[in-house]
């Protein structure tokens, strides 16, 4: 592959003024150094005759005829700058000929004449730093406004009003064209096409908009057509001490603006450009989808809102949802990389260079969150959300937003979207597996408690049978005792209800349903869990001591899963004391450090846990029970369940004997408060 480098490309970096004329004398190319030397932007020079630079056009025509005949010329000429000053320039002109011998064009090299006494600026060797950022601006639609401003200028105390009108003028002014430098400085890599036709205000620093408006009015209302109007502006974070020159263009209703000034950066601009190029290349090829966004106008809106004393921006947005819509339709995406185009299935970057709204069609609330982050002055924001591709697929994505630093050079917000659809579905699968596993363990526990459960249900059934038979006996007597039958029937109903409650509880334990986190009274859950094992305890003459003191704060957990943990721990305690002479299980619940968490403790008087087992207690398949009696998954699952509530499970040996398991549960209101903060 061969790379063709055209002359102008090379000349862009030349330190000398390089101008290419066609044989008629019209400027064909005007390099940045020419812009620096003469002050005329390339934009205004290309297509113009050499006479534009000279006040003695008669001499120029004669000179041109001689040049084309002789092929070369060298000497000092006087040239006019936009400010009307004449400078002496050392030039060398060469005619270049086509293959057939006819003149093709003229190339001219020039630098300020030293004989003039002027010393070239220290920045001479870095022409880019001095090149003007130039604009061609259409204000034809603002004639009335300009006239109004001109009238206001005569009035006293109209300053504030004038200031507002000047700003309005810049908002109404449209960009006809800009040069490379303008694009680089304020275009945010938008590309020229995306700047053309836009309001100037969108790209012009806020601080100096009114000044630009003033200069436009000066130029449009000035008596002399050629007059230039200039103002030194304060440094604006983009250029150091910029100098703005505005003059009327040939086309009616249009003006030119040229902004001179060194880039407000300590590094040389050439270096900056090189590093920017490297940065852009890096960004472009990054495997993560990136969006560059200019939300500067929203930043200003936020400042205004903040100034009114608003601190809870979320609440403010709830009252003003239209602000989210404004951001969706006006915050412009200024650049995207290849991965972004791929992620959304676009055909080119241009498909994505639109207002940000399309990124938030599935989840408008994510845009709201992004706005809140910016308002609150965060440096970044991250969340899992959903994004719709151009072909209608909805992807799970991890969105990361990096906000601009306050007072940064350019107001650039970077969005990155990472497709986590696969990861999410994998996580969902793992969650499903864990749920299945937890459910299977519950079923297994119920299986082990069959005897106990059967006994539990049999009790009310036995009462029902006896009461029913007794009723029949009363009824079959010569004089049926109806009040007695009434009483017995009531008891039958009570017992049937009791049996039904037990079945309900077992069904709850056996059901397969997604866990939910609700506010629970721990004492109540313990009471329910105890009913599953009470007969196991009684049949083995195990003494159960329940120490539930005062009313505990509510905890946040899944009722069935919490029961599962308690039943599992009780089952273990039961096995631990089964063959011991002293058989005591103690249950206690407390909130030791009030209003933070609740501890639920199950202690047994068994032999304790061997140290080597204790270290691996919550790992799967760790069991001390005889083969065929438990898989060694109960504690692992109990720990997992406790953690899923935001709590944990701990175990330790007691002195002199026994072991203690502590379930730590988060309080309902604390968790809620914490989730609010997040």
């Amino acid at each position: 592959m061969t790379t063709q480098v055209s002359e102008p490309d090379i000349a862009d970096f030349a330190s000398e003024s390089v101008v290419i004329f066609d044989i008629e004398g019209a400027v064909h190319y005007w390099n940045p150094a020419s812009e620096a030397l003469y002050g005329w932007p390339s934009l205004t020079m290309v297509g113009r005759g050499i006479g534009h630079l000279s006040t003695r056009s008669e001499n120029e025509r004669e000179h041109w005829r001689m040049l084309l005949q002789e092929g070369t010329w060298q000497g000092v000429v006087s040239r006019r700058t936009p400010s009307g000053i004449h400078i002496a320039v050392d030039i060398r002109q060469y005619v270049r000929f086509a293959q057939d011998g006819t003149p093709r064009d003229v190339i001219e090299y020039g630098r300020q004449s030293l004989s003039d006494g002027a010393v070239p600026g220290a920045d001479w060797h870095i022409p880019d730093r001095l090149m003007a950022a130039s604009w061609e601006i259409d204000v034809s639609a603002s004639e009335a406004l300009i006239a109004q401003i001109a009238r206001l200028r005569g009035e006293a105390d109209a300053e504030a009003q004038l200031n507002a009108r000047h700003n309005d003028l810049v908002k109404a002014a449209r960009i006809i064209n800009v040069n490379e430098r303008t694009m680089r400085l304020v275009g945010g890599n938008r590309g020229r096409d995306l700047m053309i036709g836009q309001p100037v205000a969108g790209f012009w620093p806020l601080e100096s908009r009114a000044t630009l408006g003033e200069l436009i009015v000066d130029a449009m209302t000035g008596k002399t057509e050629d007059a230039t109007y200039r103002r030194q502006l304060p440094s604006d974070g983009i250029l150091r001490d910029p100098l703005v020159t505005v003059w009327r263009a040939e086309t009616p209703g249009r003006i030119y603006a040229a902004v001179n000034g060194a880039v407000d950066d300590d590094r040389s601009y050439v270096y900056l450009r090189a590093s920017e190029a490297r940065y852009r290349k890096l960004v472009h090829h990054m495997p993560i989808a990136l969006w560059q966004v200019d939300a500067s106008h929203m930043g200003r809106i936020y400042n205004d809102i903040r100034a009114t004393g608003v601190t809870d921006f979320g609440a403010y947005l709830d009252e003003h949802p239209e602000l989210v819509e404004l951001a969706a339709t006006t915050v412009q995406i200024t650049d995207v990389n290849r991965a972004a185009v791929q992620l959304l299935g676009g055909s080119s970057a241009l498909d994505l260079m639109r207002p940000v709204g399309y990124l938030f069609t599935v989840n408008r609330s994510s845009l709201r969150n992004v706005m809140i982050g910016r308002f609150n002055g965060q440096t970044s924001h991250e969340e899992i959300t959903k994004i719709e591709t151009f072909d209608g697929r909805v992807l799970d994505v991890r969105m990361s937003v990096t906000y601009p630093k306050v007072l940064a050079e350019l107001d650039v917000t970077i969005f990155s979207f990472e497709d986590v659809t696969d990861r999410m579905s994998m996580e969902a699968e793992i969650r499903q597996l864990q749920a299945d596993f937890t459910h299977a363990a519950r079923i297994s526990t119920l299986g082990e408690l069959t005897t106990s459960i059967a006994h539990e249900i049999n009790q009310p059934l036995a009462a029902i049978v006896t009461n029913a038979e007794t009723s029949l006996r009363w009824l079959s007597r010569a004089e049926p005792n109806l009040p007695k039958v009434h009483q017995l029937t009531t008891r039958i109903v009570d017992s049937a209800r009791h049996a039904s409650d037990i079945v309900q509880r077992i069904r709850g334990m056996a059901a397969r349903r997604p866990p939910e986190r609700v506010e629970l009274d721990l004492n109540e859950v313990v009471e329910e869990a105890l009913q599953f094992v009470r007969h196991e305890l009684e049949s083995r003459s195990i003494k159960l001591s329940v120490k539930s003191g005062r009313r505990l704060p509510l905890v946040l957990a899944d009722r069935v899963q919490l029961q599962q943990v308690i039943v599992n721990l009780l089952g273990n305690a039961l096995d631990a004391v089964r063959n011991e002479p002293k058989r005591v299980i103690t249950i206690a619940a407390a909130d030791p450090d009030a209003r933070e968490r609740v501890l639920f403790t199950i202690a047994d008087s068994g032999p304790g846990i061997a140290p080597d087992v204790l270290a691996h207690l919550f790992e799967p398949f760790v069991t001390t029970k005889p083969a065929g009696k438990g898989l060694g998954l109960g504690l692992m699952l109990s720990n997992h369940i406790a953690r899923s509530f935001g709590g944990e499970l701990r175990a330790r040996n007691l002195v002199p004997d026994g072991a203690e398991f502590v379930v730590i549960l988060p309080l309902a209101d604390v968790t809620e408060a914490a989730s609010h903060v997040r």
Partner: protein
Amino acid sequence: MPKTPLVAVVDDDEAIREALCDLLMVTGLECSTFDSAPAFLDNVQNHFDCLITDVRMPGMSGIDLLERMRAGGSDLPVIVLTSVIDSSARARALDLGAQAWLTKPVADDALLDQLKAAIGAEDWPDGPEQ
């Protein structure tokens, strides 16, 4: 007129205690209920004609109660009424001279037949006094 036989019922389940008592009363027997074995032992000096006891109860089981009674020289007829299916416990109860081992839910006739055998037909009432 012979005195009405008095039957003790020991069960930790209130619904069962009440149901049994009502059945005994419709038959014309008198009934005293206790929610645990120790509670019955505290009143063992009372003259009971028969004891109906559950097996699994907190504190002391029905088998332990039977052992304690026999050790103390009591030959009170005892009917074990339980939902536990435990053959060794059953054998132990019968060894200790239990009148019967019945499982819940029990048919009223089966229970009353055993009670009649324990108390004796001569003392068996004709029915409740209206």
